[in-house]
């Protein structure tokens, strides 16, 4: 029989594990945003090697499973003498993967800005870096927010992959309690609820940011 009261005394541990999940997710979202910005600027740059590198980066990171990427970072790099903690390896893998998706989201945003914006800024004598920073990117970022939101939610869920390289986040912790108590349904449903709460909170925060930025429109 199902016995959810069993879960009760483990709740503090699950909450603690959720913090680890949130930490990985938020940090890799931030890494993804910064990396995505760098990659998209390379991609739209007129310097051919940069844009080719960006194409290559996006092609590989989007075209291969995140789990393979994570295992390469965590299990592969030590072979080359680079030892990373499970947490750091997860951050790097998730962040680099998110960077590829964020770059594509930003590219869509930048392309949606009418050509006249660039022309008006050029006609005022502004140079390319200033135009990007002051005119194009602020507008493109707003357009990109729904996409960034989707990617963030995906990332939060995908952070469960970190359990496979022994990070004690929510999934890993639930798994441990589930098998030691032989109560898989109870613990995995609880884990699902915890994830749902976190993605709901994240959606809420993103909506707030979106509506705050939309004031100007």
């Amino acid at each position, binding site marked *: 029989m199902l016995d959810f009261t069993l879960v009760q005394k483990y709740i503090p541990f699950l909450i603690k594990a959720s913090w680890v999940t949130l930490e990985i997710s938020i940090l890799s979202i931030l890494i993804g945003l910064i990396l995505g910005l760098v990659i998209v600027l390379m991609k739209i740059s007129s310097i051919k090697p940069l844009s080719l590198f960006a194409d290559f980066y996006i092609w590989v990171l989007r075209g291969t499973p995140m789990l393979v990427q994570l295992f390469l970072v965590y299990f592969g790099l030590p072979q080359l003498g680079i030892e990373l903690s499970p947490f750091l390896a997860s951050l790097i893998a998730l962040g680099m993967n998110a960077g590829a998706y964020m770059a594509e989201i930003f590219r869509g945003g930048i392309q949606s800005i*009418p050509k*006249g*914006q660039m*022309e*008006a*800024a*050029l*006609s*005022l*004598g*502004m*140079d390319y870096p*200033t135009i990007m920073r*002051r*005119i194009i990117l*602020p*507008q493109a970022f*707003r357009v990109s927010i729904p996409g960034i939101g989707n990617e963030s939610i995906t990332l939060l869920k995908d952070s469960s992959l970190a359990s496979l390289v022994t990070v004690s986040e929510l999934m890993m912790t639930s798994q441990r309690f589930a098998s030691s108590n032989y109560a898989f349904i109870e613990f995995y449903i609880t884990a699902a609820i915890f994830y749902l709460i976190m993605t709901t909170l994240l959606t809420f925060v993103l909506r707030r940011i979106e509506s705050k930025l939309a004031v*100007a*429109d």
Partner: protein
Amino acid sequence: MIQNPIITMENVHKSYGDLEVLKGIDLQVYPGEVISLIGSSGSGKSTLLRCLNHLEKISKGTIIIDGIHLDESSRHINQIRREVGMVFQQFNLFPHMTVLQNVMEAPIRVLKRDRSDVKKQALTLLKKVGLQDKAEVYPKKLSGGQQQRVAIARALAMNPKIMLFDEPTSALDPELVNEVLLVMKELVAEGMTMLVVTHEMSFARDASDRVIYMSNGIIEETGSPDEIFHHPKSQKLKNFLVSIK
């Protein structure tokens, strides 16, 4: 005129692939002159204007503005762009900035001028175009005519020596055309050097010193408003004048 021209175009060509849009333009513009460019769409008049601040790169020929050679040097290009203001058909205001920020942006970022000085000037300019009470408003809240007046103020904030107008009233509802033309006429009265691509024949007739009629990428005929509108020489211009009646 005894002055030196502020704009000189010599044998300017512009092609997009096989399509030649400008087929050898020679033009001299003198300080304080107001020139209207008329002609049917596709005649190359907008392209001519956009070549003057290097929004379009010319394929052949020479452009010299205020003594600066418009070549590939980005220093020269930016120097010229600081001296040449442009107003677009679609206004192209920056939607994420207030009206005041729109006007202040370039003087601060490009000329590195002091913020409070720029603000003072920006407010004076907004007053001049009749929009001082809209300073803190975002462009979306403004009518097309108001947006275009802000765009004029934004260009003027760089203290340009030349103003280019690319069909400034074509995207406006008819009842909003006049408020923009009034601001432009005020600039004419102040002695601004202006090149105006327009379908507003009343402006071309009443406000300009010289009218240029373009057809098929060349300057077909040029003269005073009276010569162009009342004594056209070429058959093409005669046909054009009939077609727009």
